[in-house]
């Protein structure tokens, strides 16, 4: 198991290195000068030159690439004497532990990866991610929980009441859930439950996990989670319902289920104790895949409900060629995918001994 996980982690690091390289060079091919973007229509030659010098974007492309890798890498080399150098060991940027010197004014250090600052706002990318990622995680988690619990339940009903009105209705709802664009559905839900019926629901069309009241300070506002979770959960719900239904129907047709029924077990026991565990395999795969993609940010849902998640931050950063934010967020997403894949592999082993890792 340890060997397996180690192999997966090393492979994951390779994936991350590939992601960094692809994104870095893609950004440098795309049109758009970060200095001009920062300054907008008021851009002038002096300000543009000052920004290029500060960001190091006036350096050759491969030097910029090397500087970027050096910033991201926990093990890096720096100049500790010349404060004007882009390789300078700047205490305002890095927290490090020196390992050994290399040459006259260079040192190799172990440090926390520096994700740099946003080109546009100069905000630390690590701050942006640490503030927005938990909110996206909460939204993704609650959406997937909602989708999973309701989807599994409805899927079981559909399978048990095969070809009944419940089954047909769930099929229609599943198709609607898949077809409806999230932006449109979000607007409708926000308008209907957050405005028209707000007197009864007590909900508002926008809001984040926390709100700051002028007098009472920061307060947790779980109710703001409801509408975005429902909106975001509609599509995975539709998938889970159908997957659960078809998987359970498949398992219910197996010989051992027939044996269980013949032994006189109640339908409840047959489904929950015998059939469900096996039927959940494909559902777990689908849920994990959805969760990982929801973690990448539900841009539209975050935009409509003004949920301060990472999805919309990345979308904004992409439109403004804000490379550090895009790079930092993509690295986090890639890490999340790698970690989730490892957990899914382990989960398979737990659920089904036949595929347990030797």
């Amino acid at each position, binding site marked *: 198991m340890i060997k397996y996980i180690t192999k997966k982690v090393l492979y994951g690091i390779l994936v991350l290195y590939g992601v960094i390289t692809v994104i870095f060079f893609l950004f440098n091919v795309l049109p758009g000068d970060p200095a001009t973007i920062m300054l907008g229509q008021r851009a002038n030659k002096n300000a543009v030159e000052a920004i290029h010098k500060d960001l190091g974007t006036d350096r050759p492309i491969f030097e910029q690439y090397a500087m970027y890798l050096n910033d991201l890498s926990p093990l890096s080399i720096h100049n500790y004497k010349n404060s004007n150098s882009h390789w300078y060991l700047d205490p305002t940027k890095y927290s490090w532990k020196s390992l050994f010197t290399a040459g006259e004014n260079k040192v190799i250090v172990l440090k926390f990866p520096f994700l740099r600052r946003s080109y546009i706002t100069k905000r630390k990318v690590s701050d942006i991610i640490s503030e927005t990622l938990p909110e996206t995680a909460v939204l993704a988690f609650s959406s997937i929980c909602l989708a999973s619990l309701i989807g599994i339940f409805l899927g079981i009903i559909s399978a048990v009441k095969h070809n009944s009105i419940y089954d047909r209705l769930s099929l229609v709802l599943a198709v609607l859930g898949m077809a409806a664009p999230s932006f449109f559905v979000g607007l409708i839900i926000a308008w209907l439950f957050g405005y028209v019926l707000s007197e009864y629901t007590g909900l508002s069309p926008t809001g984040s996990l926390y709100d700051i009241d002028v007098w009472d300070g920061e307060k947790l506002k779980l109710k703001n989670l409801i509408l975005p979770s429902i909106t975001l959960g509609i599509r995975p719900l539709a998938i889970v319902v159908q997957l659960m239904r078809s998987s359970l129907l498949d398992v219910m047709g197996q010989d051992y289920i027939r044996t269980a029924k013949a032994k006189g077990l109640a339908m409840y026991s047959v489904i929950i104790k015998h059939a469900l565990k096996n039927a959940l395999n494909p559902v777990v795969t689908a849920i994990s895949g959805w969760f990982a993609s929801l973690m990448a940010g539900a841009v539209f849902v975050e935009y409509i409900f*003004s949920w301060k998640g990472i999805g919309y931050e990345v979308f904004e950063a992409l439109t403004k060629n804000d490379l550090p934010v895009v790079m930092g967020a993509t690295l986090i997403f890639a890490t999340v995918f790698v970690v989730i894949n490892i957990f899914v592999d382990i989960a398979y082993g737990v659920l089904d001994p036949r595929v347990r890792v030797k």
Partner: protein
Amino acid sequence: MRKLFIPVFASAFALGLASCTSCSGDKANNHKEAEGKGGVYMGGVMRLNEVEAFKSLNPIAVNENVGFHIGTQLFEGLVKFNQTDLSIEPAVAARWESNENQTEWTFHIRHGIMFHPDACFPDGKARAVTANDVKFCFDKLCTSDPNNAQFDVTLKDRVIGANEAFESSKAGKNMSVSGLKAVNDSTLIISLKSPFAGFLNIMAMPGCWIYPKEALDKYGLDLRIHPVGTGPFLMETVKEGEVLIMKRNPDYYGFDKDGNKLPYLDGIKYTFIREKKAEILEFKSGNLDMVYRLPVEIFHEIMGDLEHAKERKTDFQILNSPAFNTNYLGFNCISSTFNKKEVRLAFNYAIDRHKITDFTLQGEGSSADYGMVPYVDAFEKDGYNFKGLKGYTFDPAKAKELMKKAGFPDGKGFPKVTLQINSGGGNNILIAEVVQQMLKENLNVDVDINTVPFAEHIEQVQSGKSDFFRFAWFADYPDPETFLTLFYGKHVPTGATEKSFINYFRFKNARFDSLFAASFTEPDKAKRYGLLSQAEQVVLDEAPFMPIFYDENYSLEQLNVRNFPQNPLNYFDLSVVYLIPKDKMPKK
């Protein structure tokens, strides 16, 4: 048991939902408003929204609307604008005078004016502002810095020694600006290279807001979210992109005419809801006190209520004013497609601007019948000759004649043109499509529309890679000069592929440059405006651009909001705004 399962599950789910709707509910404002003298009310929290997060609250870095709106509550310069008529008012300076030829300005710092209390000061205590603080801030403004977006539009080319200090700082040697002298703690003298009638407007701009050196030393780059100013409000909490809370500055010097201490409000809460429709829903739900810049798609729905608003049947107030904002299409005047004046003029006469504003924009805006400078009656009163300007009317026959003269009778032989617009604005594509249609109908010219992200758009236009493009220009301050600078030849680089900042048209005209430059040194406002309107006529004759419409500022306010007028600069001064308590509102 089985039959009970579904109803039990459904009930549990509903209960969970209901309990969540009541958990951590937001309380209404607990702090009661109290009646002040003269019928105003003290207290309450103003709830506002911006659809974009601010970039920076470091004064020299403020270059966008959101930073401007928020920063205006936290900072002041030597002077500030009056919210109603944009006239200049004393702020950090209590009074000022100039010499006869207006090249030397002496500012007297207000006695006892304090910076906000902040951790950057010893023991966190507020301290008084001195003339040396102003000198420090203005010296910093004249220093090359990647954050410095304000030097070019404020002290550059105006204050003696400013350019030299800036150039010296680029080489790593910071030097003091010789034209800025702090004579003592309360007196600052600013010496100009030549008289400039708009000088006091410049002093009100964000780059000239005053902040303490201690704040810059302590916070460095993070000064962007640690503003320390002298404004009527001080920063309480900020969660970037989410919420920003300001509270009343207890040391603020201002009083109203009845002796009430300003600001009236206890605080301001800014949210950053990005979706415009969601913002309007929050306003209609009563969770915001004001919204501005209404999306055109719902404009008719909102404006349809204007009739009811007049009879007091609606639940909100609608305010509007002309805006210092012109939407236009520009030409690259040195490109092979648009280097002929006749072609550019033909394009202008082929467009029916009134149709665009009446139908495409559904009345939100007025047609650009003049030039780049939008019609503002204050400018006209001060001597800007709008009525004498010969702008562009809709004249397809004249347009065809001009194209013929240019060598393209009925559009034959004229190359296909691409109109480049930036994405993200609802009106942009609508107007582009209408212009495309009008140019085809009236000139038989084929126009493709290319929509690109704003970042790419601005890059391409500055680099001269786009021959025909859309932009809008917002004034920096209330003066025609800030519009006409777009045509100043000094901004144009010598190389065709070098980036052209500000003057995207690469327009160079000796007569325009001469009139524009003469306006810098004309101390008499009426004569100066006369020179500028003459300069604008030169631009109209040469047609480096197509003005389309002048924007209008519309805002919605809750019925209990008072003293919050709309103005062309979208300048908000919340120190004079108050909220009438709901129970004191007159019954409908």
